[in-house]
C-alpha cells in the first residue's frame, strides 16, 4: 500500500492524530463489541417486536450478519479481482458492525415517530444517531473527552446520507445540523476530495452487505412468521401493491417449497450468489491514479440486483403488517 493510503485514511477526528491503519481499523471494529450499548441492540426490532417469538432476527444478529457478509464480499473481491488485499476487510467489518447502533426502539416505524415529534427541534434519523453515539457517547479519553475519534475512512463509511437536516425535506435521510463538521471532515481531506463516500469500502456498506442481509434474512423471518404468504403476495396491502414481477418471483419460490423452514434454507443459499454478484469496476476519479480506493466503484450484477429488488419489495408486506400491528397496539395504549 502506498504512503498516500496511510496518510489520508487513518487521519482521526479531533487532534488529527494518526495510528497505524492495520491496527486502528481492527480496534475500531472491536470497540463496538466491548461497548455496553451494543447489548441494547439485542432487543431492537429488526422485523418483529423483540420478544414476540423465539427465533428471528434482531438488530444485533442483523449487525453480525451484515458484518459477516461484508467480510465475505471483501474476501471474494480480494481473491478474485486483486492479488493483494486491496480492500481493508477490518474497516468494512467495523463499519458494518456500527451501522445500526443508532436505531431507536421499534425500528423504522419508531424512527419515523421520533422524527415526527422532533420536527421543530432538528429531526431524528437513525444513521445520524449512529454517528452521534460514536462521536459523542462511546468511550472516554484519559483527558476526559467523550466519544470515539474515528478515522476519516470510518466516518466516511458510516455516513449514509450527505445532506443536513435544514437542507433536506426533513422526512428522513439526513444528518443533524450539529454534525456539519463531521461531514466536512469526511468530505474535504487535504487532497481536495469534494464529496464524501468515495472510498470503495464505503460503497460496500451502502450497496452490499446490509441490503443482502435485509432482503434475504428479513424476508425469511417474515415468511416463517406467516406474514408473507402466497395469498397476501397477490392481494397486497392496499397502498403498496406488489408488482407483477415480485408476485411471480414469490409464487415460484413458494410453489417449489412445501414447508416454511425450507424457505429459510433456500434464502440462505442465495447469500452466496448475492455475494458473487458484486464486482469492482474502474471509474474516473481525480484521485484514482494515486489510490486503489478511488480507482474503483462497486457494481452489482443486474440479475442479482433484480432478485434483491424483488425480495425487498416483498418485504413491504412485512413492514406493512408489522406497522399495522404496532399502530393498533399504540391506539389501544392511547399514546398516539
Amino acid at each position, binding site marked *: 500500500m502506498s504512503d498516500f493510503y496511510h496518510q489520508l485514511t487513518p487521519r482521526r477526528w479531533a487532534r488529527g492524530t494518526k495510528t497505524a491503519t492495520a491496527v486502528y481499523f481492527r480496534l475500531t471494529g472491536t470497540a463496538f463489541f466491548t461497548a455496553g450499548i451494543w447489548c441494547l441492540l439485542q*432487543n431492537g426490532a429488526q422485523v418483529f417486536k*423483540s420478544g414476540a417469538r423465539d427465533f428471528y432476527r434482531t438488530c444485533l444478529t442483523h449487525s453480525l450478519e451484515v458484518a459477516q457478509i461484508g467480510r465475505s464480499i471483501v474476501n471474494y473481491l480480494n481473491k478474485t479481482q486483486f492479488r493483494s488485499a486491496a480492500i481493508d476487510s477490518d474497516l468494512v467489518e467495523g463499519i458494518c458492525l456500527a451501522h445500526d447502533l443508532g436505531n431507536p426502539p421499534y425500528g423504522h416505524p419508531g424512527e419515523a415517530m421520533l422524527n415526527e*415529534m*422532533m420536527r421543530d427541534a432538528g429531526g*431524528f434519523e437513525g444513521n445520524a*444517531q449512529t454517528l452521534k453515539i460514536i462521536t459523542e457517547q462511546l468511550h472516554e479519553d484519559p483527558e476526559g473527552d467523550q466519544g470515539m475519534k474515528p478515522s476519516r475512512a470510518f466516518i466516511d463509511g458510516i455516513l449514509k446520507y450527505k445532506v443536513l437536516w435544514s437542507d433536506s425535506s426533513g422526512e428522513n435521510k439526513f444528518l443533524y445540523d450539529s454534525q456539519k463538521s463531521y461531514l466536512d471532515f469526511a468530505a474535504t481531506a487535504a487532497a481536495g476530495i469534494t464529496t464524501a463516500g468515495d472510498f470503495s469500502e464505503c460503497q460496500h456498506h451502502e450497496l452490499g452487505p446490509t441490503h443482502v442481509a435485509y432482503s434475504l434474512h428479513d424476508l425469511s423471518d417474515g415468511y416463517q412468521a406467516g406474514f408473507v404468504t402466497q395469498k397476501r403476495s397477490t392481494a397486497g396491502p392496499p397502498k403498496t401493491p406488489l408488482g407483477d414481477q415480485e408476485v411471480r418471483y414469490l409464487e415460484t419460490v413458494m410453489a417449489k417449497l412445501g414447508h416454511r423452514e425450507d424457505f429459510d434454507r433456500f434464502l440462505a443459499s442465495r447469500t452466496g450468489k448475492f455475494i458473487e454478484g458484486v464486482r469492482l469496476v474502474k471509474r474516473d476519479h481525480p484521485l484514482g491514479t494515486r489510490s486503489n480506493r478511488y480507482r474503483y466503484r462497486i457494481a452489482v450484477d443486474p440479475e442479482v440486483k433484480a432478485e434483491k429488488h424483488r425480495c425487498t419489495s416483498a418485504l413491504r408486506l412485512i413492514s406493512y403488517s408489522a406497522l399495522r400491528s404496532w399502530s393498533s397496539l399504540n391506539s389501544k395504549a392511547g399514546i398516539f
Partner: protein
Amino acid sequence: MKHIDINDYTEVARMICDHFAEQTDISLPKIYKRLFDPDYGTFYDLV
C-alpha cells in the same frame, strides 16, 4: 457530562429524544407502564 440550557427547547427536546432513542423494545413499554399504569411495577424498578 454535557450541561444543557433548560430554557432552550431544542436542547431539551434533543436530550429527551436521545433518551428514548437508546431504549429498547423491552424497556420502552416498561417506561410507559411505569408512568401511566398505577398497578405496574415495584419500587425496585426505580433503583
